[in-house]
């Protein structure tokens, strides 16, 4: 029987918040093990060079140093998506983050001192830092481990098409072609990378206390790198101080730490300082997008043709597969009859790119949404009307064969237009406050996977449940908590289903020796996939409880409700405490523990070789309307109001949801206005928070959030994925607002005051 929801939809503080507020949470840098050593890594002095010799003798002599290792001392396989990244480099270095040697010592200071004593002779070489240069016929091979299928420096090519593009070009009344340049942005997790490796010479097992978002893939990869059996490696996730996609790959420091522990037989910890974090963490892909977009005379979109060159850097992470996600936006955000998408990840001698919240979608959406404003302007159409006319709709089957079984796109657009006070007559003139200050409003939408993403052999998640004799529930889930609040969402679902208080629920989710398999925190999938997995397990648990309760209460199973810690018969009004029912199952026939397991695999499909197929069980949609004020004297941009309407399926925890939205939007603002990791000839110029600015508390605008509930048929309680979406439309909406205010041309990010002033001058 259907009852009103008592927990789902109610603002609920995070279960782990009190531990975090008290300072007791243990992050990677806080781990201390008996007899622990500290590791440090020597990175190359030059981005591109042959390594002539490495002399570690002085480092070895420093008191307190226990081990020094170089590429010649270790037996380890290459890491990363294309297995093109040696853990410690031998013979040559390819980018400024390259690892050459590592030290284990009794203190971190001694390890860092020892690193400085390692003498390396380099034969410095010219590098290639521009992917277009790397694509020339006579360009030398940058990464020796990969033979590109098309060109030696193409790490990963992607090609997709649907529809008759030539016919659609002929139908087009306007065609806009723009080249966009998107910068390197980096995650800036507040907690720098940290790992503690503990290898036991006695039982030959390796325990890693680390911060991965993908514990089971990490375990498998680590085993392959170290030539160990995966089951001999135990991954324990510490509290993770920010992920945002950065922990979706393994990086060399992690196997290096393991190797130091294996070499010394003692636990070893490596923690990055902030400069190392900036240099040796991945970045969002820097890319050049040539996008041609068309529309017919009525404003219906006709086609998009995207040609993209991505700066892969020297090695290939999972991030090189971001075109999977980008092509979804080019092919299917707004109705579109025809699309060509051609993207190449190209090796250069820059630091390498990785996965980052949105996974290519912020770049793709920026290009698509900027071009839409240009199409509208050329057609003389209202920029809101053109979006509404082309919006995605429920039950749409897109050219890429994605099925939108629920879709709140139109509603989201209408809400943000309405709430922002936008009207078609709101124009540049309307926003003309004075000669100096000009205001404008910009729109952008977003399409992203919302029901997992089938890109790995399984997109599933396992759940084990145990209810003890005192009525407390332990949820052992494959999914991971990285600050996003997944623990709390799962506990809320269990509380709702079993009618027990949240304080009687515990979530265990950090240990691969205990928890069942899960593919990891990515694709905004945890609430959807881990939530459905939990609901499947709860159903089994309730079957056990209900069978016994029905017997005890002499009634039918359908007659039972779970509420206030009781299982109650709605006809007789009689009830039993839930823990009493558990004890009846445990201590009397059938003498069973109240424990179950369940594995959930989403119903999504693998794409075929043409990249067609319903890759996610459902999709998330959003629209943002943003108002800015531009100071035409200084070029300074003030973001005034951000209106966000997002199709979240169903609100599970309003508190956690708003936190994800606000955090995502502010990260998107950073992408729009502030953030770029500057690189010159392979050197990183701004590896600190003075020079790489992220938004602070004085920068943030008013953020207004309007959830759109489409009650997805496959989502847990109707919910769909949330986490990545809010940052995706923010940069294009801000850019469109600035153009609305002052009419400059914007084709690149970040939109700094210098660029605004320069554009104003050039246009005058």
């Amino acid at each position: 029987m259907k009852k009103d929801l008592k927990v789902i939809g109610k603002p609920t503080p995070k279960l782990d918040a009190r531990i975090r507020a008290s300072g007791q949470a243990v992050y990677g840098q806080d781990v201390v093990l008996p007899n622990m050593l500290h590791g440090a890594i020597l990175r190359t002095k030059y981005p591109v060079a042959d390594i002539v010799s490495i002399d570690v003798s002085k480092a070895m002599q420093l008191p307190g140093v226990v081990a020094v290792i170089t590429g010649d001392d270790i037996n380890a396989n290459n890491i990363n998506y294309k297995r093109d990244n040696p853990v410690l480099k031998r013979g040559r270095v390819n980018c400024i983050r390259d690892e050459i040697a590592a030290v284990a010592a009794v203190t971190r200071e001694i390890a860092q001192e020892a690193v400085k004593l390692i003498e390396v002779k380099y034969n410095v070489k010219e590098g290639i830092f521009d992917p277009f240069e790397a694509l020339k016929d006579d360009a030398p091979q940058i990464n020796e481990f990969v033979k590109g299928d098309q060109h030696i420096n193409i790490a990963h090519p992607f090609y997709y098409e649907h529809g008759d593009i030539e016919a659609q070009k002929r139908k087009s009344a306007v065609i806009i072609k723009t080249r966009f340049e998107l910068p390197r942005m980096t995650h800036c997790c507040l907690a720098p990378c940290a790992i503690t490796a503990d290898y036991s010479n006695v039982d030959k097992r390796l325990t890693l206390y680390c911060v991965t978002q993908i514990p089971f893939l990490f375990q498998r990869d680590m085993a392959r790198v170290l030539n160990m059996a995966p089951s001999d490696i135990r991954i324990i996730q510490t509290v993770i101080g920010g992920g945002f996609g950065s922990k979706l790959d393994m990086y060399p420091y992690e196997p290096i730490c393991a190797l130091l522990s294996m070499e010394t037989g003692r636990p070893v910890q490596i923690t990055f300082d902030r400069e190392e974090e900036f240099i040796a963490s991945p970045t969002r892909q820097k890319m050049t997008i040539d996008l041609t977009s068309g529309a017919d005379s009525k404003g219906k979109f006709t086609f998009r043709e995207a040609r993209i060159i991505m700066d892969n850097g020297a090695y290939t992470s999972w991030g090189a597969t971001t075109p999977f996600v980008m092509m979804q936006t080019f092919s299917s955000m707004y109705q579109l009859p025809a699309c060509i998408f051609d993207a190449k990840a190209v090796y250069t001698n820059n630091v390498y790119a990785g996965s980052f919240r949105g996974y290519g979608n912020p770049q793709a959406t920026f290009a698509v949404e900027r071009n839409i404003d240009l199409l509208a302007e050329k057609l003389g159409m209202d920029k809101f009307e053109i979006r509404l006319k082309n919006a995605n709709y429920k039950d749409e089957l897109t050219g890429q064969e994605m099925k939108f079984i629920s879709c709140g796109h139109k509603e989201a657009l209408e809400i943000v237009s309405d709430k922002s006070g936008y009207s078609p007559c709101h124009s540049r003139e309307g926003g003309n406050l004075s000669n100096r200050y000009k205001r404008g409003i910009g729109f952008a939408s977003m399409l992203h996977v919302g029901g997992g993403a089938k890109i790995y052999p399984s997109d599933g998640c396992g759940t084990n449940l145990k209810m003890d004799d005192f009525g407390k529930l332990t949820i052992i889930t494959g999914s991971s908590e990285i600050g996003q609040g997944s623990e709390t969402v799962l506990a809320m679902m269990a509380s709702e289903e079993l009618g027990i208080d949240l304080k009687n629920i515990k979530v265990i989710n950090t240990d691969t020796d205990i928890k069942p398999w899960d593919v990891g925190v990515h694709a905004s999938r945890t609430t959807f996939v881990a939530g459905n997995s939990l609901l499947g397990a709860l159903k089994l648990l309730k079957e056990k409880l209900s069978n016994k309760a029905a017997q005890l209460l002499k009634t039918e199973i359908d007659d039972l409700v779970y509420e206030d810690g009781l299982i109650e018969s709605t006809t007789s009004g009689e009830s039993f405490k839930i823990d009493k029912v558990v004890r009846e199952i445990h201590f009397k026939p059938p003498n069973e523990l109240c424990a179950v397991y369940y594995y959930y695999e989403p119903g999504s499909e693998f794409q075929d070789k043409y990249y067609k197929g319903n890759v996610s069980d459902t999709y998330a949609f959003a629209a943002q309307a943003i108002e800015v004020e531009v100071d035409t004297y200084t070029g300074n941009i003030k973001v005034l109001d951000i209106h966000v309407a997002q199709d979240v399926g169903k609100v599970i925890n309003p508190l956690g949801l708003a936190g994800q939205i606000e955090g995502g939007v502010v990260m998107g603002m950073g992408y729009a206005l502030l953030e770029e990791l500057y690189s010159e000839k392979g050197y990183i110029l701004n590896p600190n928070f003075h020079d790489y600015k992220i938004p602070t508390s004085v920068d943030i605008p008013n953020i207004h959030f309007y959830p759109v509930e489409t009650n997805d048929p496959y989502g847990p309680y109707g919910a769909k994925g949330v986490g990545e979406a809010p940052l995706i439309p923010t940069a294009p909406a801000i850019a469109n607002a600035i153009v609305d205010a002052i009419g400059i041309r914007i084709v690149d990010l970040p939109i700094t005051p210098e660029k605004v002033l320069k554009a104003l001058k050039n246009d005058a």
Partner: protein
Amino acid sequence: MKRIIHLKVNGLDHEIAVEPRRTLAEALRIDLGLTGTRIGCSIGDCGACTVLIDGVPSFSCLTLAVEAEGHEILTIEGVADGNKLHPVQEAFVEVGAIQCGFCTPGMVLSTLALLDYNPDPTEDEIRRALSGNLCRCTGYQKIIDAVKDAARRMKELS
């Protein structure tokens, strides 16, 4: 060469031997085991290591341990009253101001100092007081809301 110093942290006296170059953050974390003080950048940019020195918010990564001798140091571990969280901590929990939580100890200590100095801050004053504490998860809105809520809670108590 190491020096013996006396630090008064969260009301307790400690005697430790430190190199003169040891920062207060390192002394708290390594010598005293008070790891609630986080190290996010070590150069005074991020505020994760904020502690109160004689009630004034200070970057413990830019303070030498030897400089802190003779001063009252408050770290996140000393904020709660035994098992009972401080109203500022309660507000951060209840309002949803904590995601990954790495910035939280520094944010809480900056808030304590603000509310001590100005029990009824405006939104603008809150934003400015927290501008030395970076957060990458929350977008700051819920943190600002938590400070307002904390001010209300503390007024009710006083």
